[in-house]
């Protein structure tokens, strides 16, 4: 991915195609799935169209808006199957503004936390400030947070510094961590992937009294110079978002060391990964092994 520049903030449209395929070695007789199969509307994005395809044909496909405002889907498949394929295709209009860091600097981390405590919406504040299953704020997290988010630091600078610190202090390596990795594991391992870095950023923010939420979505990538884009080679992505005293949220991506721009497409948000796991399921089967294959394509559409 190229470095961030002013061009990255221009409005644009993306088509995001996300295909999940489960393959089993025996019939699955019934399968129940829950997932986020429609991107949410946000101040920075509008959903132009969304299409969900599931094979075998589900007996029931239901959608509701969850506690966090995400579009949550319930899927019930009772046709016996050895392959389940869930494909979501969305066209999204995206336009992220550049964050006014200087404006944010009129607060310090501490004064921002106080302002939010005293005047912010209590539900929002408590939801994203309290520890959550995968963001346990213990002494180790507090110690790391203290080293990167000083109470007296200007808020805008502090957000950038936090993003940079995690980017610098932790190596990006996949396969080392998984859905059960805790922040405590991560602080010892010093390596991980976007989900880990996001959780750590949230731990630091919450330790400093700033509500932080987990954002799940996508990020447009460019193929290495001179190479063609491979189909299905993109991935879903995750980053953090912090509440500021004015009520605005600022999205920061510690995996890539910058704040979000118009290459970022949001699917859902919550307190941590558990709240927005893209697709999870319960199946009835005598099958003992299963394989999961995910293909994601984030394609920038030509302007109309």
């Amino acid at each position, binding site marked *: 991915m190229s470095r961030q520049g002013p061009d990255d903030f221009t409005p644009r449209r993306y088509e995001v195609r996300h295909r999940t395929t489960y393959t089993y070695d025996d019939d699955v007789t019934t399968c129940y799935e829950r997932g986020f199969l429609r991107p949410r509307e946000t101040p920075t994005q509008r959903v132009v169209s969304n299409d969900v395809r599931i094979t075998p044909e589900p007996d029931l496909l239901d959608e509701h808006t969850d506690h966090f405002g995400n579009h949550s889907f319930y899927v019930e498949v009772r046709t016996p199957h050895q392959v389940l394929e869930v494909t979501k295709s969305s066209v999204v209009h995206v336009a992220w503004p550049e964050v006014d860091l200087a404006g944010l600097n009129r607060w310090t981390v501490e004064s921002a936390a106080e302002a939010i405590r005293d005047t912010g919406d209590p*539900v929002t504040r408590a939801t994203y400030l309290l520890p959550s299953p995968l963001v346990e704020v213990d002494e180790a997290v507090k110690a790391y947070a203290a080293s990167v988010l000083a109470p007296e630091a200007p808020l805008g600078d502090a957000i950038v510094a936090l993003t940079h610190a995690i980017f610098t202090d932790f190596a990006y390596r996949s396969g080392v961590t998984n*859905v059960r990795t805790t922040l405590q594991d991560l602080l010892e391992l010093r390596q991980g*992937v976007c989900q880990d870095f996001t959780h750590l950023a949230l731990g630091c923010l919450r330790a400093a009294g700033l509500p932080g939420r987990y954002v799940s979505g996508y990020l447009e990538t460019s193929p290495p110079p001179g190479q063609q884009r491979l189909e299905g080679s993109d*991935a879903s992505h995750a980053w953090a978002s912090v509440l500021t005293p004015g009520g605005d949220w600022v999205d920061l991506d510690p995996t890539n060391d910058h704040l979000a721009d118009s290459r970022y497409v949001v699917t859902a948000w919550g307190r941590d990964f558990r709240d927005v796991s893209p*697709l999870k*399921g319960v199946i*009835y089967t005598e099958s003992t092994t299963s394989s999961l294959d995910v293909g994601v394509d984030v394609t920038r559409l030509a302007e109309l």
Partner: protein
Amino acid sequence: MSRPASVPAAGALDGYRSLVESQTGPDEWFDAARSVRPDQDLVTTAVESLGLGGLLAARAEARRLVEDDGIRYGLADAVDDVPGDRGRSWVIDPLPVVIGSLEWARLEAGLRQRAQLLQLLHDDVYGERRLVSERVLPAELVLGHSGFVRAVDGIEHQRLVLGATDLARGADGAWTVIADKTSAPSGAGYAMANRRVTSRVLSSVHRGASLERLRGFFHTMANALGDVADAGVDTPRVVVLSPGTGTETAFDQAFLATLLGFPLVEGDDLNVRDGRVWIRSTGRREPVDVVLRRVDAEFCDPLELRSDSQLGLPGLVESARRGGVSLANPLGAGVLENAGLVPYLPAIARRLLGEELDLPSAPTWWCGDASSRSHVLTNLDSLVVKPIARGLVVAARFGWELSAAQRDDLRREIEERPWAWVGQEPIPMSTAPVVTPSGLAPGRFVLRAFGVTDEERHHVMPGGLGRVNTDPSSMLVSSASGALAKDVWVLADDPSGVRGWSAPSPDRARTLVRLQRRTAVAPRVADNLFWVGRYAERAEGTARLLRVADDLAADHAQRPGTPGAATMEVMVQAAAALTGVAPRADQGPVDHLRAMVGTPHLLGTVAHACHRLVVAAESVRDQLSQDIWHILSRLDRTLATPAPADSQLRPQLDTVLESLLAVAGVVHESMVRDQTWGFLDGGIRIERAQHTVSLLRATLALERPPIIDGQVTESVLEACESILTHRRRTASGEGPAWPVQSATSLLLADTGNPRSVAFQVDRLADAMRLTGDDLLVTATATLAASLAGLDLVELCSGDRSALLSTLTNVDESLRAISSELSARHFGRKPRRRVLLGDWSGGVRA
């Protein structure tokens, strides 16, 4: 009833009075002036008329009744085949706690207000959350509470049908709330069990008392549950969802289901289709409209809640969200089991009800508030400190019992997550008399009151579950910590004593009838009913056979080489073949037979079959008559004590058989002839048929010298309870003259002999008709026809190899029917797996 002369009747009263004089806090029986409180005459009468001796006898009688009814509490043994610990017996102190009608009316009004308040609070917490956004209620108390279930946020019209409130008396004697039980309150079944036992052991006092009755409350509850079904449902189906027989309050769940007349189900008995809940059954698909939930909320749905739960069913939350099923109580109700709410309830009551909160709680400080926190931290040594939510780590800590180091640890824990803790002033709590061998002793008393809300109002059970500890210096009163149960008698203000149960309107009555109709039989239930039948019959058949062999052993074991000894050997070997219990090298026939009576651990023994009978019966407790439990309990006791080493087995086996016949009688005379009966009787018939076939194979299907053959034949007929018929027929010249032919005819093909294989097959066909399975009816009819066509003279001639092969074929047919029945009706769900999403790893430049 014996009354020791050394303890005069007045001694117990005076002794107790002097004990409570020196203690702190009020007493239920005596006031501060040492006088019996008004309304407590019944307690005085009970104590004075029975004396300590009589009360101790009542206590012993209560224990026996508890044992007989199988009233248990606590965790069952996890190991399937090891008997014994099916939880502790529930312990009931025979003296009830009596509450006057006026005092009760006041308490009732307070509980009614509280139920209304909790409902409105629940609606707000899962709706607009105005109390939080307007800062009447701190957000952390809701959003930081483990009982706040985000997955059900926004589901509307969720009624808290059931409620329970733990209460104790404050220093001024006023009932003070200790805890609200809103999620899946337990204990109403125990309260009814306490009443049944107490009214029997104190029958003279109970008969003369004008009390509120409890039964009507359960009618009200059944109605109230039907009320929460979707409005479009004409005849709502209600089930009681249990986590299984291996849970602490399994008795309470099953007994409640029986009192309500609703089936007791487990997660495996249900599934979700098209966003609705159904009872799994091969017969017909039946939707479930209302689930009385006794599974903790977080375990109810592995798709949306705890993914590691084996108890609930995936799709339940979705079904509730779509309105396809109503849960009582709703899954999010646990957020109200929250000590942190206490300081805010008065303001919430003013806000939501425009009323002052009626029932007080102990003064409580929520540590999420800075000044409250500092109060708690500086007064740790005098406060009860507890988490706002029930967690894995228990519960209240009494500051004054902690060491300095423990207090420091607690302080650190509070500072780490202040919003998760409260400090409370201890409630003095009243004492009530407990019957002990050394006299009446005061114990601290806690009352659990129960309520149900229907469309019109909140109804409070006129009584409750009393619990009393045995150490008045301790504030810990819980069943889990060994408290005793007490019945709670509410004096009737209307002497007819029927206030709790007014006659239902015709509409209501129709609903009741509809609610209590039979529902489809889930595979787990069918399976267990079938095995109740099989194990009961197996135990009986084995016991009969062993009794015959034991008699032979008593007569002939010391006379080797005689025909009698040879017959004994044949019968002992037959028993070994049927039970699969082989003799040890050093075991003579007598000890071998003793081993076959056996222990519950040893497969094939009488004791093992009886143990499995109890396990199977407990899994379908709601389907069986209550009368069965005291019989099973006696059976248990009989088998727990082996026959004395030098005596015959017969006396013990006689007692075992008496119990088993009583079981058969209860089952026969109490069960409706529907599907459930079909499965149970099917089990009896298949087992008896197989037993008889196996016995014939091991005995008469082998040619022996005539003198031995004759004795073996007699023994077999005796073991099959057919010897009288045989003798009568032989004497009158009916049937084949040759004993082996006559016996084979009587035991295999005679459709008039209730012990014959042919008779069993006919009854099996009836049973299969009740299950509605035409295929099995046909299979059974085919077997019946082949039995009718047997040429017994031919079969019993020569070396009897023809008989042996015929018996082998019959046995195979029976096994085929049994396994077909099992495959078609007892099928469990395939294995369940949870697939959590993987981390994508994300995108990095």
